[in-house]
């Protein structure tokens, strides 16, 4: 629609601007402030320039955490995106089953993150959990997410798939619903196979929602904190300690404000950078 140029519109936007600025700019300023100072207590602080940044970027603990985080986010995307698309293709489009399906799929999205962690914590235990008991006693596979690092990894991944695949599926579903029937009819007349229909009609039309799904899942998986923390506390050892947990421990646990602040900035920048890369890559592809 054609928009009218009118700077008085700023009055309408002002409440939002103030509110978000309050929540975003002031804290960010604090973070930047801390990242360049060494703070002993209220009264003694020293400007240290880029010292904290150097320290943070060389910290092996952080390197490990970052690597783990990237692997985790990559796995999440590799599983959830194709799975979400596949589920969206099978979802019914009308009738009572459609509503039931939508509701069941939305349920995991509305469970508080810690409850998600708790559900699987219970579910996966060998003594009181159905899954744990089943794996250990029926399939005779030794499974213990608290003691075994790879079991912990697999469990954390499955939790994320359980929790968030519905989001991808619902986004793809809505993208599919937007395709006019006429396209499918024309494809039938053209004698196209199911795969051809998927490749030439459904997938291209889903591109914009897929872009959003990929970005959201990347961003959110990169920021993940609660679920792995509730499940394993980051363990065994460090095997499931991801970036948010490392940062939180540094900031609130150890109160290393300077390094924490520096790390925060780096963290935020990484997310922005990778999101921007995804975004440009996909929209660039679209323009071609």
């Amino acid at each position, binding site marked *: 629609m054609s928009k009218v140029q009118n700077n008085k519109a700023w009055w309408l936007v002002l409440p939002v601007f103030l509110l978000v600025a309050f929540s975003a700019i002031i804290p960010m300023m604090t973070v930047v402030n801390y990242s360049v100072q060494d703070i002993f207590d209220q009264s003694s602080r020293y400007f240290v320039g880029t010292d904290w940044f150097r320290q943070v970027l060389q910290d092996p603990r952080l390197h490990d955490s970052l690597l783990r985080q990237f692997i985790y986010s990559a796995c999440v995307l590799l599983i959830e995106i194709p799975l979400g698309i596949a589920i969206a293709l099978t979802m019914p489009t009308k009738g009572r089953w459609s509503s039931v399906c939508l*509701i069941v*799929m939305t349920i995991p999205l509305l469970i508080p993150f810690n409850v998600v962690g708790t559900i699987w914590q219970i579910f996966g235990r060998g003594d009181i959990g159905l899954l744990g008991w089943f794996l250990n006693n029926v399939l005779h596979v030794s499974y213990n997410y608290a003691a075994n690092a790879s079991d912990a990894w697999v469990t954390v991944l499955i939790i994320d798939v359980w929790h968030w695949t519905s989001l991808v599926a619902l986004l793809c579903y809505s993208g599919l619903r*937007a395709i006019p029937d006429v396209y499918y009819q024309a494809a039938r007349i053209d004698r196209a196979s199911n795969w051809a229909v998927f490749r030439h009609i459904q997938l291209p039309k889903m591109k914009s929602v897929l872009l959003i799904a990929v970005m*959201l899942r990347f961003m959110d998986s990169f920021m993940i904190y609660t679920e792995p923390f509730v499940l394993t506390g980051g363990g065994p050892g460090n095997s499931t300690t991801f970036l948010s947990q490392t940062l939180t421990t540094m900031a609130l646990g150890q109160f290393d404000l300077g390094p924490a602040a520096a790390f925060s900035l780096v963290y935020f920048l990484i997310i922005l950078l990778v999101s921007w890369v995804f975004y440009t890559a996909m929209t660039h592809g679209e323009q071609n």
Partner: protein
Amino acid sequence: MNLRKVVPLWIYLLFLLVPIYWLVNMSFKTNTEILGGLTLFPQDFTLANYKVIFTDESWYSGYINSLYYVCLNTVISLSVALPAAYAFSRYRFLGDKHLFFWLLTNRMAPPAVFLLPFFQLYSSIGLFDTHIAVALAHCLFNVPLAVWILEGFMSGVPKEIDETAYIDGYSFPKFFGKIFIPLIGSGIGVTAFFCFMFSWVELLLARTLTSVNAKPIAAVMTRTVSASGIDWGVLAAAGVLTILPGMLVIWFVRNHVVKGFALGRV
């Protein structure tokens, strides 16, 4: 019904439901039964766990606190987002594209980064451990989301309607309230749904900014876990009760949720 399509879908839905069933199952058992052995249905059906939650103030206050700040956040987010979304939808103004983009970047902000600054900020203005603090903190990512979704819905309403109303003599507030808002009713519903969703599920900020008075249910549950001797039954019951508000909300907006996702703006 195409079996090749239906079977995978059913497997997936079962995959989603089984852990929840297990939680519900456990919430109706006594601790002795839980620790005694694995049973698919409660042998000793009991409502005692739920009773604990409804009678123990430290439990039910958690729910009330959570519901309170979530509703507060939804109301605040909607009220500030509506005029802003209108501005983005109808007008061009200095810095509008940059402002919009900046708002969206806040959605990408890791809560962990803001933990400490928020903690200090809200303490310094004396709002630590209040519901409004959590509500305001959640605005960081909910308000951009609300503006984004509402702008999408508003752009679907043709400008001619605004112009006709002005010609008919409506003042801006009257037009906005009587004509415009009813037209984007489903958009407001969808936005409220997403605001509720993201605020209800968030733990990190909510826990950091509260201690006693405004302690959300999530914090109550996690603190229970760290205690020795975990009361699994009560924990399970508490978990079930956190899922219920979500299910209610989904039920109310079930027809509009797909439309909201269709804008692809979640």
